[in-house]
């Protein structure tokens, strides 16, 4: 097992009475593209600033490449940040901006400019050396900010919501660029973002944060398919959550009842489940199928309902179905238009049957982790 290049142990940071970070433990490995996601105010930016040295934790330890970072100021840490606002120096050209970090650490001028030129080529900005920041577009500014940090060959690159200021199309392009850059340079990237799509599409591993704590750390696939708690399940992608109670455990599966029907539902179980306990049954919208009500006997995990509303999304639609057993419960079902079965009319007011496989559902604890 490789030694982690970043080790965070028990880091806590308070602002006034609020706990911005609470007992954070995290290990990040060399060469990873690591993402930290969470809603606004979850503490991800604070964590980033603690890593960079702009905030000092109230307690806990931070190691970068096995070196304790206590008392080491930001200008002596082996990592660099790409700021959300880019923070390019407005009075310097692109060339000088990128060269700044090298000049202040005493790299000889010739080597400075050589490295800058190489990096400009790498981020595809050759020829823009003499421009000033106010003459560049958003995407170009982004690349200059990247180049400025990368030219220093840091062990770790921190990115604070780097793509939030770009429009959707540019964002997608830049995501691919970031992954490409990371793979080719082999530097550990730590990306902080509130956009879970961004994290899912770029990272090797993701940490999901909420209220100052880390809720789960896993690969994108594991995070999506096997969220360990209610928050992660709902934050990454979306999920329908139905209260249920465990009746029986049979090997990997368990049988649960819901308050909605008399039927038993079959769910993929997990460790430490007790019979009689209340849990949440989670099913993602795209894992639910819609068929005619008359097919009701063909399936095991099923719920009847009436389509209350439809949200058109282009290549798919989200059907909001009111459950027959309890009108207050609305299940969201996502169906792509190419998958629609021909023998059912999906319009508002139509009675439908929702069904899914046992393996598609998740059993989650019914409390905030």
């Amino acid at each position, binding site marked *: 097992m490789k030694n982690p290049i970043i080790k965070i142990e028990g880091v806590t940071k308070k602002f006034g009475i609020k706990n911005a970070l609470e007992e954070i433990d995290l290990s990040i490995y060399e060469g990873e593209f690591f993402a930290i996601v969470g809603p606004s105010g979850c503490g991800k930016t604070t964590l980033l600033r603690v890593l960079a040295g*702009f905030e000092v934790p109230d307690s806990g330890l931070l190691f970068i490449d096995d070196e304790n970072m206590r008392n080491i100021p930001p*200008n002596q840490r082996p990592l660099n940040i790409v700021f959300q*606002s*880019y923070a390019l*120096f407005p009075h310097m050209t692109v060339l000088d901006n990128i060269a700044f*970090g090298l000049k*202040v650490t005493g790299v000889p001028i010739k080597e400075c400019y050589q490295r800058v030129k190489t990096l400009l080529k790498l981020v595809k900005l050759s020829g823009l050396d003499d421009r000033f*920041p106010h003459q560049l577009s958003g995407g170009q500014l982004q690349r200059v900010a990247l180049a*400025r940090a990368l030219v220093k060959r840091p062990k770790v690159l921190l990115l604070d919501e780097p793509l939030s200021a770009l429009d959707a199309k540019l964002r997608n392009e830049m995501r691919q660029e970031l992954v490409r850059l990371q793979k080719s340079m082999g530097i550990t990237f730590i990306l902080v973002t509130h956009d879970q799509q961004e994290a899912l599409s770029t990272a090797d591993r993701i940490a999901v944060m909420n209220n100052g704590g880390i809720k789960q750390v896993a690969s994108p696939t594991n995070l999506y398919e096997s969220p360990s708690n209610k928050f992660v399940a709902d934050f990454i992608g979306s999920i329908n959550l139905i209260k249920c109670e465990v009746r029986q455990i049979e090997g990997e599966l368990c049988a649960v009842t819901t308050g909605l029907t008399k039927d038993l539902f079959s769910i993929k179980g997990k460790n430490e489940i007790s019979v009689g306990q209340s849990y949440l049954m989670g099913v993602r919208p795209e894992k639910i199928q819609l068929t005619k009500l008359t097919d009701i006997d063909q399936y095991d995990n099923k719920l009847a309902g009436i389509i209350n509303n439809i949200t058109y999304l282009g290549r798919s639609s989200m059907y909001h179905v009111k459950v027959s057993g309890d009108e207050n419960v609305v299940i969201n079902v996502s169906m792509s238009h190419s998958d629609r079965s021909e023998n059912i009319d999906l319009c508002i007011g139509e009675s439908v049957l929702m069904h899914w496989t046992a393996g598609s559902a998740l059993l989650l604890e019914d409390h905030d982790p």
Partner: protein
Amino acid sequence: MMKQVGSHRLIFWLTFIPPTLWLLIFLLIPLSIIGSFSFSEKRGLIDIELSWILNNYIRAADLIYLSTLIKSIGVAGITTVICFLFGFPLALGIASAPPRWKSILLIAVILPFCVNLLIRTYALIAVFRTRGFFNFGLEWFADLINVPFEPLSLLYNDTAVILGLVYVHLPFMVLPLYAGFEGFNKTLLEAALDLGASKLELLTSIIIPIITPSIISGCILVFIPALGSYLTPELLGGPNSQMIANVIERQFMNANDWPFGSALSMVLVYLTFGILALRYLCFNNLYLDKNKRRL
């Protein structure tokens, strides 16, 4: 938000005419008159004839007047430098204060400025004259350490004038500098630190280049008034500490030589315009980009 004149003609003229008229009548025309006087000569006790001669200016170039002018420029220059040396760290410190302290400190710095110039200068006299409190304090201290004491003659010389000018003009340096620091994008400092800059490099490579327009503003707001100051040299200066404003005043009040006085005044006016024009030409591109400096 801005409109072309066409859409609201009436309102435009309503807002344009009164201030313009006022400036015209009470500033531009009077300045033109003394401008014309500067090219005139006295005929008799009261009459002045515009004869388009340069006598007044030639006389202004006499050593006695030229040296006063140069001395005034020197005094104003030193005042500006001292104000900058004190004002820069002061403004920097106040700008980095916690919000609660900022307003208190700013007001504390501005408040003395609201006190009448005359009163403040008079107060300085009371403190620094031979039998004033500064000397009393020194005397008390000298007695304490048993050193013979001669009261310092601090007043009625050039040093006193400079001191008085700094005393009066310091807020005019602090305020523009403070405004510059306040509007400064602090993330740039974090970025520079992150890239490895030391505190000193932060100051020289990042802060000062970006804050230059404010520095220029502060210097101009101190230099020009200091150059033309009248009361401070009059009250605090000795016979050799006359500045140009004192000379001008004498021409109008005592010597009654209005054409010559006008010429001297116009020299000051030309200097003022010159400095402003210089700033406009050299630093206008800095100002143009100012809106885009919010990167």
